[in-house]
């Protein structure tokens, strides 16, 4: 079986921004994504928690897989697009078996 190289894009972002983020990914031709809601942790914006009434301190993890060129463009654009929001964006190498899905 042939294995194909792709980039995994992981975006930990405040939950209110998820609709914007997925719209942006899709606009870049990303064919699918996975969201993991209610992820907590700590970072530059302080503690990010999930049991919180206004939901402004809550994060969601968005995962997508795309060709390297697309992923790099998304990474570059993320600097401006997510500048004032709680967000972590990073890429990593992955291997997939069905290249037409990504």
């Amino acid at each position, binding site marked *: 079986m042939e294995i194909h190289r792709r980039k995994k894009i992981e975006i930990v972002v405040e939950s*209110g921004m998820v609709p914007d983020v997925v719209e942006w990914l899709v606009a870049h031709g990303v064919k699918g994504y996975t969201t993991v809601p209610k992820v907590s942790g700590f970072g530059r914006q302080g503690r990010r928690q999930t049991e919180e*009434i206004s939901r402004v301190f809550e994060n969601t993890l968005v995962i997508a897989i795309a060709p390297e060129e697309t992923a790099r463009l998304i990474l570059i654009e993320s600097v401006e697009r997510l500048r004032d929001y709680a967000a972590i964006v990073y890429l990593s190498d992955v291997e997939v078996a069905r290249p037409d899905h990504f």
Partner: protein
Amino acid sequence: MGEILSLAGANLLSPMVLCFVLGAVAALIRSDLEIPEAVAKGLAIYLMLAIGMKGGLALAKTGGGNVAASLAMAIVLSFSLPVLAYAVLRAVRALGPVDAAAVSAHYGSVSIVTFVTAVEFLAARGTPYDGILVAMMAAMETPAIVTGLFLASRSLGASAVKRPQRRAKLLREVLANGSIVVLVGGFVIGWAVGPSGMKKVEPFMVDIYNGMLCLFLLDMGLVAMRQLRSSHDLTVRLIVFALVMPLLNAAIGFAAARLLGFGLGGTALLATLCASASYIAVPAAMRLALPQARPGIYVTLSLGVTFPFNVAIGIPLYFAIAERLAG
């Protein structure tokens, strides 16, 4: 003064407020007490529906009256109250223009839970209120956001606040948010079915209401105190603002109630609405539209300081003043 103290004392000894205090104490001693999120959400939907139905029923009983004038007043209040809050924050140099604008939007909007608690305060005293207050509350939630964003855009420049298409999306999200849909929907249902229709749901919507409110306020006590504890952005000046601003806004509420010709219950409730500050809808909107502003300030002030103040002291105080005004 003695009368106000005795009302405040009676309010503090109500099961609902004591549950709120219990939640706050639990958070203070770092208890692992938690109301599961799904339960809290279910309780919130129940309360919104019940309070909407009660308001609609009250309107059906008392008739239309000055519905249009009341709604227009609610919108005008919500648009204008943030201007006062912003002016106060800037005058005492408590915050920069962007944070001040974000905070001011919260103080022009409303807290539904504060309103619900005030309605129960009136019910415990057998004081009727104008049903239109529920619709006024719904009308007051959003306009303040527009004013807050406008105030911010004066210092940031309009482009920094929002791209136009996102602003439209934001307003749609706020207007269609679940609380408002259930609240207004309940209001219309209560008004449409009238007393005979409400009889059918009375055991669920009325009889057990106070017990449900106890559970909800227990959760709110936990949430408010945890928010207060986790904040590192508060200054004495900001805390004083969060305690004084409700009083200033309540004064405007009293004047508006007089213009509308409200009775004792309506006056106390409108003052409470003006005095309350949003901690659900407006923070979410500000976070999206004005990400430069610090949520650690605006959420903590409205949820951690103003909300407990209103629940414990503000509501009986506004009621006592409304009694005086009613003669």
